[in-house]
């Protein structure tokens, strides 16, 4: 870890602020709440969680107000060490996550003890996961929100994504921690990721900028998410939508979910970090309740659209809000023993024989011959190969630089060893879990913990 600010780790003067420390930041981890309302007329993007429903459910699970600030994690989550006891919940994308090596489940709240390390690894289905902490993430409120505005570089944690060494403050929990842990949402609140999405849209405001055939193309075709998909918007590929005349309009407001169509006819869905105004006509607007499902799509996923009337769209919104209003009363209280069993151990540290050892995390997985695989956490392009066969690597040493969703990130050696085999070259595409290299871990040379050296 780098540059831990000890000042930040202390409780602040106003209230009992506990903290957690970022050991590994993940691909793009930001502090988000429900966004910055009321400042679009100053050109300020709304920001906030792109999957707002997942954020709100996470907050309900830990007893927070639905709009409390939480962490939004993208594709690959962070590793966090908690400085004090806390209750947390994961929602959104399906993730592989562990607490001190034992697996933890999404869509239920659980207790984290001081000193424990929560490791959120790759999103296996869906793209964005949320981590709410009882009490909320405590960052300054700027223009009415704690959300990170990445484009204008303010809000959230210093206006940027988290980095290793950052220390996050947490607000005072809304109740005794033991009462907040072990709560689950009913089954119907768990989204199904990895299935084709049909987003409901209201046509307009500029559907008359398109030909009748163009509107039909939009509603009857299947589109695919391109790699140009981020918090600002999703650029889609598929049949081009024909404009009536020009593809330019006098710049006007871009609502959340606005589907703008530039000259090439390929639609772009505008999301949380969208610019407030733009000059392309918007054929339709995705209804609020469906935004999160769009934002969970990954590059390559399929998406189609279905038109609904404004009245239908508002009925859908009503149903969602009524459900969310009732959700706190409908939480299922998980049996704490059952829950501990899922962790593989009870709080006292006794391993339950019927369940065996907790599943080992891929970070430390070595086969009996002493080989460890270095896998890609997500579909990506190999941008750089930093090692060669025969070279020694320390645990945590970066071995590959991958590129996905316009971002670069490193894949490090899960443990120390000698590189036995490099299976990819620069420019190769890799899938989730694909082995990129193997390490001979029986070789003791260089078996240091990379982290302990810093």
């Amino acid at each position, binding site marked *: 870890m780098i540059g831990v600010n000890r000042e930040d780790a202390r409780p602040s003067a106003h209230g009992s602020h506990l903290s957690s420390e970022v050991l590994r930041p993940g691909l793009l981890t930001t502090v988000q709440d429900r966004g910055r309302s009321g400042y679009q007329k100053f050109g300020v*993007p709304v920001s906030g969680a792109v999957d707002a429903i997942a954020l709100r459910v996470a907050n309900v699970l830990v007893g927070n107000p639905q709009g409390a600030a939480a962490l939004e994690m993208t594709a690959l989550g962070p590793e966090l060490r908690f400085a004090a006891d806390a209750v947390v919940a994961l929602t959104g994308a399906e993730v592989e996550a562990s607490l001190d090596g034992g697996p933890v489940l999404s869509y239920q709240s659980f207790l984290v003890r001081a000193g424990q390390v929560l490791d959120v690894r790759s999103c296996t289905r869906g793209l964005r996961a949320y981590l709410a902490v009882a009490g909320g993430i405590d960052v300054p409120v*700027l*223009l009415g929100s704690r959300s990170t*505005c990445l484009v*204008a570089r303010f809000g959230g944690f210093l206006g940027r994504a988290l980095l290793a060494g950052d220390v996050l403050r947490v607000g005072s929990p809304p109740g005794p921690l033991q009462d907040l842990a072990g709560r689950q949402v009913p089954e119907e609140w768990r989204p199904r990721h990895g299935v084709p999405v049909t987003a409901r849209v209201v046509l307009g*405001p*500029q559907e008359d900028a398109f030909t009748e055939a163009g509107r039909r193309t939009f509603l009857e075709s299947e589109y695919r998410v391109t790699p140009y998909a981020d918090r600002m918007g999703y650029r889609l590929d598929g049949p081009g939508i024909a404009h009536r005349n020009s593809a330019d309009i006098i710049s006007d*407001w871009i*609502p959340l979910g606005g589907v703008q169509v530039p000259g090439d006819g390929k639609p772009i869905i505008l999301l949380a970090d969208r610019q407030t105004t733009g000059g392309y006509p918007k054929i339709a607007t995705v209804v*609020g309740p469906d935004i999160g499902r769009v934002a969970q799509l990954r590059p390559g996923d399929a998406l189609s659209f279905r038109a609904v009337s404004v009245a239908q769209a508002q009925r859908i919104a009503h149903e969602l809000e009524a459900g969310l209003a009732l959700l706190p009363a409908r939480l299922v209280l998980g049996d704490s023993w059952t829950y501990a069993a899922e962790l593989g151990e009870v709080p006292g540290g006794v391993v339950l024989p019927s369940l065996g050892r907790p599943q080992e995390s891929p970070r430390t997985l070595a086969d009996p011959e002493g080989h460890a695989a270095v896998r890609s956490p997500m579909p990506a392009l190999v941008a750089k190969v930093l090692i060669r066969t025969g070279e020694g690597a320390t645990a945590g040493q970066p071995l590959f630089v991958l590129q996905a969703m316009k971002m670069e990130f490193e894949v490090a050696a899960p443990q120390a060893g000698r590189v036995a085999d490099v299976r990819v070259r620069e420019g190769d595409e890799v899938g989730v879990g694909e082995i990129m290299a193997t390490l001979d871990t029986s070789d003791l040379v260089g078996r240091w913990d990379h982290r302990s050296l810093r």
Partner: protein
Amino acid sequence: MTPRFLPAGDRGLLVEFENAVSIEINNQVRALAIGLEAARIPGLIEVIPTYRSLGIEYDPLTITFDGLERQVRDVARHLDPGILPAPTLVQIPTVYGGVYGPDLPYVAHHAGLSEAEVIRLHSQTVYHVYMIGFSAGFAYLGGLPERLHTPRLPSPRIKVPKGSVAIGGSQTGAYPAETPGGWRIIGRTFVNLFDPLEEIPTPMQPGDQVQFVPISEEEFLRAVSRAIGGPAQIEKETTWQDPPRAGREPRAEG
């Protein structure tokens, strides 16, 4: 003419006036925005005035599209003609040319003018703020003299320094933050065009009049050094790393 009321999803309404850029139409948009903010319609979340239309975000749990349209029409009918405040003149001190305005020679060449004439023409014009958009604090200004219309760069710069004053096609404006950009950069201001610590985070508002006031490099550097509390230094590169805050200088120690 009567505006059109267009849906923008389940929680947006667009009031569209005529399809043209004119101060008169823009004034109608802004008057309605001010009227609606004063009317405090339950469920109305925020209004976003642009060139010729007004975006309205609302809470569909509180008010329906039709209900909101009725209320907006009602406010529009009873608008006080004097609702628009007298325009404020906002002056933007700008150092033109040199490392601060690397495209000034191109703009001058394109216009068939000397650099000094470009500066005079650009700074003597009073611009109208049509709207704030695109990025936090970016003001769309109208009124650039036709002589100064200059095509954008063939490919955008990856980094345009914060505070850059530039011309793109028939438009001129100032970049509130370091961003990519394809406009021709002719100068730079030290005025902070977006400050998220202020409740009104931008110095320019729709309807304001804006004038760029030429200053010398010395004046620019003095203002910058006052703002960052250090000695003035001639800038070596075109990227200003540590941009200043206008009018909110930290007090010198001692």
